[in-house]
Every structure is written in structure tokens, then in C-alpha cells.
């Protein structure tokens, strides 16, 4: 447990000690602010729905930017050699890295609490959808970090890790939207139904409405656990290559 916390903490600190970490999080805050401000007008409803929907889509790009370095960087610098010869298991490494990356994602979304304060100061917002929105955003982020961790484990190049994560995520989103819709009419529900379930960002719509659907929660958590486990298994397998 100690080891997992130490790995996660080191990862978290490292992200915010590199310029890249601040650039990524500044970009995220800026884009979110633009969307938030377009709806932050007299007469408009005091909600953050459009913000959460956009933040969900934005996470598809931002989370891989956090996760790309998790293992690939260790591999490149040779530090993985110490992790793999220390008396710790590959599972501890994978879980520590996953938690560290997830913490970075959550930390990056914290500046957007300013929007909540702005709403509270000027109107009387309904806090249910806001709390739901943040829970959804973080769950989505955690799932994406795990996917990114997996791709960071398979390559020793950070850029390759980033691109393959983004490519994988976009591919599943295309499958879950355009392909699924086409399959719905032409082929049948037996194909389209599983494709629909691959969707990530669209699940944010429900959370942003304040609906915390166990189906979505279970999906994100399952994705996080599955991809983190796969990362640990790949790390174990890679010793044998």
C-alpha cells in the first residue's frame, strides 16, 4: 500500500513540476472557460450543462496527454529497470501509476470550480446537476487514464502512446455513434447495441443532467479496472520478451 501511494504521489508531483503539465491544464481551463462564458449571460439558465458536455469531449484529448508519460517515460529513462527489480509487483506499479494519473486529471479540473463560484455569486443554481457533472467527469477521466496507461505500457515512446490512445478513443467513439447508427437500420440491434455501449463522452449528458446512472458508473469503473489490469499483465509479460 505504501508503495502504491509513493508511486502515485511521485507521478502527481512530477506532472505539476514539468511545464507540460501546466500547459495541458491551462489549455483545459481556457477552453472550458470559453464554453462556460458563452452561456454565462443574464437571462440564461444558471447551469453548467454545456460546460460538462464539452469537458467530457475535451477529456478524450486531455487525459491521454496526462497518461502518455506514465510508463513510457520510465521505459525511456531506464527507471523502469529499478521498478522491475525492486521488491514490488508489476500490479503495484500499474495501480500506483493509474492513481497518480487519475489524481492529475482530477487536480486539473479543480480550477473550474471558479465557474461554480461565479454561478453561486450571480444566480441560484441547482447543485444536483453540478455535483453529478463533476462525478461523471472524474469517472470518465479515470477510465481514460486507464486506457492511456495501457497504451503507455505497450510503447516506449510517449508520442506513440498519446497518438494510439487518442486514435483508440476516437475509433471507439466513431463506432459508438456513426457506425452504430448506421448498423441500427441496416444490420440490426445485435450489432448496434454493443457498439452503442462503447461510447464514452456521450455518457456525460446524463451526468450533466444530474442523473447518476449506475450503468454509466459501472461502465467507467469497469473500463478503469480492466485497462489497469491489462497494463499490469503487459508489464509482467514484457519481461519475457
Amino acid at each position, binding site marked *: 500500500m505504501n508503495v502504491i501511494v509513493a508511486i502515485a504521489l*511521485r507521478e502527481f508531483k512530477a506532472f505539476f513540476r514539468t511545464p507540460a503539465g501546466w500547459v495541458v491544464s491551462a489549455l483545459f481551463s481556457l477552453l472550458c472557460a470559453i464554453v462556460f462564458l458563452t452561456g454565462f449571460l443574464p437571462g440564461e439558465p444558471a447551469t453548467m450543462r454545456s460546460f460538462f458536455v464539452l469537458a467530457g469531449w475535451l477529456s478524450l484529448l486531455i487525459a491521454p496527454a496526462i497518461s502518455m508519460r506514465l510508463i513510457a517515460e520510465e521505459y525511456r529513462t531506464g527507471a523502469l*529497470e*529499478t521498478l522491475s527489480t525492486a521488491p514490488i509487483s508489476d500490479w503495484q506499479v500499474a495501480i500506483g501509476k493509474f492513481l497518480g494519473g487519475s489524481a492529475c486529471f482530477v487536480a486539473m479540473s479543480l480550477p473550474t470550480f471558479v465557474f461554480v463560484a461565479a454561478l453561486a455569486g450571480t444566480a441560484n443554481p441547482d447543485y444536483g446537476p453540478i455535483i453529478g457533472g463533476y462525478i461523471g467527469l472524474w469517472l470518465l477521466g479515470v477510465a481514460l487514464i486507464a486506457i492511456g496507461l495501457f497504451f503507455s505500457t505497450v510503447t516506449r515512446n510517449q508520442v506513440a502512446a498519446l497518438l494510439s490512445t487518442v486514435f483508440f478513443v476516437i475509433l471507439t467513439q466513431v463506432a459508438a455513434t456513426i457506425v452504430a447508427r448506421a448498423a441500427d437500420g441496416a444490420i440490426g440491434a445485435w450489432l448496434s447495441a454493443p457498439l452503442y455501449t462503447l461510447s464514452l463522452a456521450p455518457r456525460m449528458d446524463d451526468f450533466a443532467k444530474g442523473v447518476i446512472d449506475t450503468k454509466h458508473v459501472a461502465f467507467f469503473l469497469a473500463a478503469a479496472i480492466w485497462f489497469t489490469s491489462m497494463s499490469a499483465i503487459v508489464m509482467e509479460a514484457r519481461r519475457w520478451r
Partner: protein
Amino acid sequence: MIDVRNVHRRFGQIHAVRGVSFTVHKGEAIGLLGPNGAGKTTTIRMITGALPPTSGQVRIDGFDTLGQAMQARRRIGYLPETTPVYPEMRVTEFLRYRAVLQGVPRRDRRSAVDCVVEQCWLRDVQQRRVGDLSKGYKQRVGLAAALLHDPPVLVLDEPTSGLDPAQIAQTRRLFRSLAKGRALILSSHILGEVERTCDRVVVIMGGEVKLTGNVAELARGDSLRCVLEVKTNDSAVLRSALSATPGLRAINAEPVVNDPAWMHAVIETTGDGDVRERVAVAMRDAQLLVRELRTVERSLEDRFMQLIEEPAATSDNISSDEKTVAPA
């Protein structure tokens, strides 16, 4: 302490390590020597458990590095070839992190870090960022991290590459002191390094152990060399003059670079006794003027160079896969 038994490692088609066996006892320092790509790093990675052997077994203090990996790993301090450091961390912070990874109990961590900072002369830089340190200091930080849990087995892969001569001398003394009460493996392609720090050498080439033995014994050598300078510009004259002299194995003669009237010859002897008198007599009989005649003891370096050069000299007899270079 370290027991390597008939270890093989293949990377696809490449057979990088072919049946390496040796043991290292407590209090003993051995040097793993070999040219680049000989399989040193692969062997070391198998000892530390970073890489499982294709076949064979490595035991650390009796624990199998595969079956009892955690027990084995807890007993090893390992400094990899590329010093693994996180550039953004401060020295003591990095060492504390590594102490957690090595399983040093919380209450002992501070004293463990203080102890290695002292041991590796890091006091002056302990608050600096690791990324800002010179290569020599980074190397010491890596070494300090390997010592945190006071391991009975210490494995150092090319620990002095990138250090300046003063640092090398310093680190050598450190290695000697570290070897007390521990089993130490040090790999290097620089022989002088191993000669000065280790009790025993294991020479690895082409993935096989080519030579193993006590440094002192190997350095003493069995055969002697003799250096001769005579006034002649024809090496054939010299050769014919020495042709009847017993105890000579080979004569390697070249004109002196700035003084071609003189011939510089290195005579390899068969090793039974001093040949100087016989050579001097032969020179007198041939009426050749001698200005230098001395014996040279064959150093470990000569043995090593001979081993390295041998396959090249007889490359016709060696199948091509014998020369396959393993990835470092």
C-alpha cells in the same frame, strides 16, 4: 551469495547468453569483463531479476530470482547502466522515494537516507534537483539509491562510465569498502577498473565465460615477454639471428618510428625462464648492436586483449553465429 547456474538467454534468433555459470561468495568482489555486446548487461539483468533467463537458474542468498522473486530482489542493490533518476526530484526526495520502493520501514528511512548521502558524498548536493547534477553526481545518486536497504548483494553495471579520473579513484575506494561483508558484482569493459577493485574476474565473450580466475594470479601470468631493440633495418636479419634460440614463441619486429635504423622487437616467450641471456648471446653472435633488452611481465590486460583478439585472428574456424553481437 550469488549463484548463477548454466544461464541462457535468447532474444528471438539471437542467443545472447550461452550457459554462463559462476558463484560469488560473501565478502568477494568479482568483475564481469568483456567487450561491448558480450552479454554482460544481459547476464546482470538476469541476476537482478529484470530479465528471466530462457533456461538455467540464478539464486540470490538461496532464493530463486523467478520463484522467490521478492525475497531475492530484497537482497539486491542494483545500479543499472543508465542511471535511473527522476530529473525533477531533489536528491533526498528521490532517495526517500526509492527507500519506500525498497521496503525500508518508515522509521528507518531517514537514517537510511542520511547514511547513503554520507557514504556517497552527496551532502553538498542533497537539496539540488537530480536533473541539474553532473553525470558523476547522478551516478552517485544511483549508487546511493542501490545502498538504501543495505543489501547483502550489490550489482553495479558499468558504474564508472562517465566519471572523471579523480572520481573514478574515489569510487573505486568506495567499492572496495562496500565489498566488505557483501557479494559484489561489477561489470566493465575497462580492465584496469576490474583489476583494481575486484578479487576475481569472469570474462564473458559471445555470451560465454571465456576465462575466470583470481585477479592476482591472472595478472602474474605464466609467460613473459621480452622487448629488444637492435641496430638493423631488416627484420629478416633479426629473425634469422634468433632462429636457433630456444624458448621463443613469436617475434614481432617493426622499425622504430623516428629512427628506422633501429628495429624494435617484442618477443613472446614460451614462459620457461628468462630468455634475456640467450637473446643477448644470439645478438652477439650475429654481430647486432643492442640498445635495449628487457622482460615485460604480461599483465591481465594482455590476457584480456589476447582473448579478444584470438577469435579475430582465427575467424576462419569460427562459425558466423559465434560472433553474433548480443544487444547490450
